[in-house]
């Protein structure tokens, strides 16, 4: 067999995050270590600086034929109502509500008058349409404001024409144009026809509101799909049906890279309710189509029964033999050896030599699965050289490209209907399940809904990579941190660059803040696919650096909060995409104050603090925990202070923060994926146990609402949680845990 390539997997995140802190530095030296052969290769990672995203302005498509007023892709008004189109996939981050809120604000519509619909996928008209990198709000903020303001200005012009008055004499409010001096009013619905006949003005020239006049933005608005959700209406990919549709499943090799030698296809085809069973060839791209046996049936249950009855002989030459225990052993050896330097600022050796005290610690975190609650699925129909897809994907544009390649047609012959996603967390950035559905639909010639089982989902994830950090640091006689060394051992899929989310960059905390910093990076070769997982990189680095900072504060005999603020230093901007230390200190102080930092606590109780900057969000968290003698941890309360600029939907924003905190606790306590002989050991939720309601703490959320441009909230509240809780556990017990999940050190969640 040919071996798998991993082309395109990392690039998806490059495209999304641009040159954010998760990305590796160009020409970073990277040592690659083959786990199986213990062979050392020196390589130069050819890592691009990331692609810049372009966002094309909305195209004017005023529809003079239908009478509907549709000045751009975001607004449609006719006599039946105001429809706003949500352009990006909804994965639980709330954009189907928050993006239209921005349009409605500048349109000056009453939110109650608005209906929201998912827009079609058309990147020529809408620019990039995807969910990832906490980018929806920052990338669309200005364009959506202009889209709303453009529509408003045309409605005003229509009223001015009708009443023969100047536009300056008119105001708008709650979906109406008002002529104050005469008291005349006309609703947007009444004006839609006339507005549709006008030329669309240049969106750049229409005036935008002063933020102090906002009446929708910053409010608590309930999600636009909430009623449909509680009525059980079909919204998700898994709910899709199309006429004549059959149900498909696919069994892939337990060790990724394995191919089908033989299978009992004839027996399977004789089973009741089975339409077809066949070998699906892979396309050698690990991010697109993995080989397996596909079964198509009259119902999901018939397909699942047949899947269980499959007897497949696999060719595993060249397939994954990944072993987490081997990786641990190798890292244990490598942590004693210097690795290639990714960052080398000042002189850490001198700093250590001149220091008064030094600390070191070996940190480790396991692989993790996305475990989005809706298992992968996709409905596909192929006929007459055209492919139609109904997909719960985070990257519909990339899905169209990949699926077109798989079935051998031009992307222009693919139509993709965006479905609501039952969670994403980065998993649905990758469209392997879409490719699989497309290939099966083409083979059988009838529409199919492909359903992955939870077991498939756990076994064929693109995991958050595990990693190891040998940390070393020093303090001077004033208890000031003088040197910091982070010896990082990560993983590589392509033997060329660290996996997505597994590459450290100079900006990683405390980059830019300390005089003497060294970061070393070595990568272990790994076949199981690794990729972006909520707040890639930051989701694990924050745990390590946020905990180790506390270790240094502790050996210095100083208060952690005081040391953290000292490290942040004077208010300043660290590079164009870096943090602002003033905003950082602001949230640290606010979280500490709201949590009552420094107050006397009873025996066995402790508070921990952490700050992390990711996805342009400045977030500090304080955890308040109790730990019993038998290491049961009760998280009482987490206090969060966040500076992400202005808030679009207060309810949605709070929900993201609360969810990130819960996800953070869940992940740091119990979640680990391990591999032996290339096989994932955790097959379902009984072995991958997420937090449940009784463990959910009180979560107190505070937004700074600064005047900086708004930034996203799907990710940045996740990273600071783990270090805050680890530090609190140390404060409560004097025991420093350095393994994630912490259950591997005997701490359990009460």
């Amino acid at each position, binding site marked *: 067999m040919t071996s798998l390539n991993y082309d395109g997997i990392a690039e998806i995140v490059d495209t999304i995050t641009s040159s954010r802190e998760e990305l590796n530095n160009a020409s970073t030296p990277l040592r690659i270590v083959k786990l199986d052969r213990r062979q050392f290769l020196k390589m130069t990672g050819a890592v691009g600086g990331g692609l810049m995203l372009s966002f094309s302005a909305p195209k004017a498509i005023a529809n003079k034929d239908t009478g509907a007023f549709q000045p751009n892709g975001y607004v449609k008004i006719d006599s039946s109502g105001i429809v706003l189109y949500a352009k990006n996939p909804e994965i*639980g981050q709330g954009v189907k509500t928050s993006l239209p809120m921005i349009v409605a604000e500048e349109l000056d519509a009453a939110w109650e008058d608005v209906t929201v619909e998912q827009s079609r996928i058309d990147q020529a008209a809408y620019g990039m349409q995807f969910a990832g990198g906490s980018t929806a709000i920052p990338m669309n903020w200005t364009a959506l404001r202009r889209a709303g303001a453009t529509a408003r200005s045309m409605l005003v012009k229509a009223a001015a024409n009708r009443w023969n008055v100047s536009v300056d004499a008119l105001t708008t409010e709650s979906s109406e144009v008002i002529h104050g001096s005469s008291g005349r009013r006309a609703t947007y619905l009444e004006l839609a026809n006339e507005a549709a006949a006008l030329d669309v003005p240049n969106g750049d020239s229409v005036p935008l509101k002063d933020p102090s006049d906002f009446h929708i933005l910053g409010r608590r608005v309930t999600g636009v799909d909430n009623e449909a959700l509680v009525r059980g*209406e079909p919204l998700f990919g898994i709910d899709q049906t199309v006429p004549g549709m059959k149900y498909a499943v696919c069994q892939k090799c337990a060790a990724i890279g394995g191919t089908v030698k033989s299978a009992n296809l004839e027996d399977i085809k004789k089973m009741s309710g089975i339409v077809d069973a066949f070998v699906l060839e892979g396309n050698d791209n690990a991010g697109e189509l993995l080989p397996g046996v596909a079964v198509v049936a009259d119902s999901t249950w018939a397909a699942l029964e047949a899947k269980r009855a499959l007897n497949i002989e696999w060719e595993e030459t060249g397939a994954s033999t990944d072993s987490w225990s081997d990786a641990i052993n190798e890292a244990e050896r490598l942590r004693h050896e210097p690795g290639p330097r990714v960052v080398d600022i000042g002189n850490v050796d001198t700093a250590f030599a001149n220091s008064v005290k030094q600390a070191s610690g070996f940190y480790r975190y396991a692989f993790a699965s996305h475990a989005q*609650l809706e298992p992968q699925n996709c409905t596909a129909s192929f006929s007459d050289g055209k492919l139609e897809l109904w997909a719960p994907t985070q990257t519909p544009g990339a899905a169209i490209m990949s699926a077109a390649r798989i079935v051998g047609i031009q992307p222009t012959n693919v139509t993709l209907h965006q479905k609501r996603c039952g969670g994403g967390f980065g998993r649905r950035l990758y469209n392997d399940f879409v490719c699989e559905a497309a290939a099966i639909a083409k083979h059988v010639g009838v529409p199919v809904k492909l359903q992955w089982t939870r077991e498939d989902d756990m076994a064929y994830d693109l995991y958050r990579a595990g990693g190891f950090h040998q940390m070393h640091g020093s303090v001077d006689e004033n208890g000031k941190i003088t040197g910091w060394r982070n010896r990082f051992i990560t993983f590589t899929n392509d033997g060329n660059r660290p996996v997505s989310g597994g590459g450290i960059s100079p900006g990683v905390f405390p980059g830019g803040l300390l005089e003497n910093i060294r970061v070393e990076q070595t990568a272990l070769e790994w076949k199981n696919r690794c990729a972006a997982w909520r707040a890639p990189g930051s989701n694990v680095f924050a745990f390590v650096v946020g905990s180790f900072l506390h270790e240094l504060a502790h050996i210095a005999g100083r208060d952690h909060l005081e040391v953290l603020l000292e490290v942040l230093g004077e208010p300043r901007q660290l590079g164009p995409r870096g943090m602002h230390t003033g905003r950082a200190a602001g949230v640290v102080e606010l979280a500490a104050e709201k949590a009552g930092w420094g107050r006397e606590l009873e025996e066995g109780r402790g508070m921990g603090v952490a700050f992390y900057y990711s996805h342009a969000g400045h977030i500090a968290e304080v955890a308040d925990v109790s730990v019993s003698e038998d290491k049961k941890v009760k998280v009482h309360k987490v206090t969060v202070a966040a500076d992400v600029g202005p808030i679009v939907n207060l309810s949605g924003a709070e929900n993201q923060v609360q969810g990130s905190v*819960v*996800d953070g606790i869940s992940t740091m306590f119990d979640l680990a994926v391990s591999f032996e002989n290339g096989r994932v050991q955790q097959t379902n939720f009984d072995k991958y146990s997420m*937090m449940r309601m009784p463990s959910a703490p009180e979560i107190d959320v505070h937004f700074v609402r600064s005047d900086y441009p708004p930034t996203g909230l799907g990710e940045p509240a996740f990273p600071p949680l783990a270090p805050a809780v680890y530090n609190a556990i140390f404060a409560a017990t004097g025991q420093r845990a350095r393994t994630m999940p912490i259950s591997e050190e005997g701490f359990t969640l009460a």
Partner: protein
Amino acid sequence: MNIKINGESRDLGDLDLRTPLLWVLRDELNLVGAKYGCGISQCGACTILVNSVAVKSCSYPVGSVGDADVTTIEGLADSDGELTAVQKAWIDLDVAQCGYCQSGQVMAAEALLRAIPNPSDDQIDQAMASNICRCGTYIRIRDAVKSAANELATDVGGGA
């Protein structure tokens, strides 16, 4: 075979009696509110009511239904479409993130309030512990259950 779902008798033909109720609802009856999450009684996404008791439909063979009353989320609202207190609380408190677990959460909450109209915090936590929310909306779910319980208590009080 016939089963009673949302007050209606539905003919299922000669279905394999071992078929989990979840797939019967979703594939045969086009009631897709109940979701598939794990298939092994771990996540609760597939929760429905059988005689007002919360049941994981992924692990409940259709042959076990007998003449019991099955209620899915589609059958909660009354004939005018009026939502229950639980459903309303879910909207008012903007509980959902991705929303995928929420059908199961709503059904678990309905079952709880039918059994214990005024549950303590602990009873809420224990009853809802069988449902996972991957997005982490537990705090809002807890608040929504309380708010629905209060609403029901007020209704009853008002009528007395």
